[in-house]
């Protein structure tokens, strides 16, 4: 009995080593394929929360939830004049607009003069822009950063969330999601 226990403990001696190997393997695996640290909104498939935003700049229509249930799919882009990746994204948004996509904007923590300057400098793809000075709509939508975009169908249901700037390589996905939302 004691001998059996000894044989057992001899085998157990390698248990810590095996455990170490396991931990190292796990570390290497996670370093090689890092997990997705993006926080995805849970509102896909849900209606856009009720909201009313003031206009983000003079001469531009404001945005509220009722503007998003117009029978046509729309792309709601959360952006800001202080957001650097948004500068390159605006160009892609204009390309989408030229392909018939209706793009609405939500300017997060922004001032009217800054928004106007940003659009004058980089181009203006937006049909409407709402101002979200305390990130309230951003939080209500389950968005975690700027820029982010939501495909909203004609009934006002969120169909797709895109995290980060929309790049050239994302255009086909966005167009497909907008088409699905029809």
């Amino acid at each position, binding site marked *: 009995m004691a001998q059996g226990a000894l044989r057992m403990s001899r085998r157990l001696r390698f248990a810590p080593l095996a455990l170490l190997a396991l931990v190292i393997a796990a570390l290497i695996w996670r370093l090689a394929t890092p997990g997705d640290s993006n926080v995805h909104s849970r509102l896909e498939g849900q209606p856009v929360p009720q909201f009313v935003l003031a206009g983000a700049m003079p001469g531009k229509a404001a945005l509220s939830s009722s503007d998003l249930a117009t029978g046509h799919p729309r792309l709601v882009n959360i952006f800001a004049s202080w957001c650097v990746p948004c500068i390159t994204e605006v160009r892609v948004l204009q390309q989408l607009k030229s392909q018939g996509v209706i793009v609405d904007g939500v300017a997060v923590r922004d001032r009217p003069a800054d928004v106007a300057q940003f659009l004058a400098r980089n181009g203006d793809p937006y049909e409407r822009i709402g101002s979200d000075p*305390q990130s309230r709509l951003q939080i209500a939508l389950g968005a975690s950063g700027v820029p982010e975009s939501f495909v909203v169908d004609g009934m006002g249901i969120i169909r797709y969330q895109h995290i980060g700037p929309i790049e050239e390589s994302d255009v086909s996905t966005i167009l497909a999601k907008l088409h699905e939302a029809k």
Partner: protein
Amino acid sequence: MKRLALLMLLLVAQPLLADSNLPPAYWANRQLPDPAQEARAQGLMAELRCLVCQGQSIADSDAELAGDMRDLVRRRIAAGEKPSAIRAWLVQRYGSWISYKPTGELAAWPLWLAPVALLAVGAWMLRHRFRLGTRK
């Protein structure tokens, strides 16, 4: 050389670009006048995860979005909403990820079972030890 040094300094200034030009929201860094309400808000804010600095609570984070979330929490508490309702509202949007408070969902079971399992292993090892001692 001097110009180069100044240009290098610009690199240090880059993180500033990630912030807006607006001041923090009203209740971001201000306590509620009612101490009981403020205590409830503090309790909740310590258990909500910041979306920007993902290892911090919104009570600890300096990120602007965390400030806006503190503003949202304090406003709702001041309006009489329960902390559990505010937490549920956020979980509905971001998933249980947003809350530090462990839940009873399936994915959290290992967390609850691990201490019990470790205690059991410890007890088994101790028993083994005692037995060996008596046989010697």
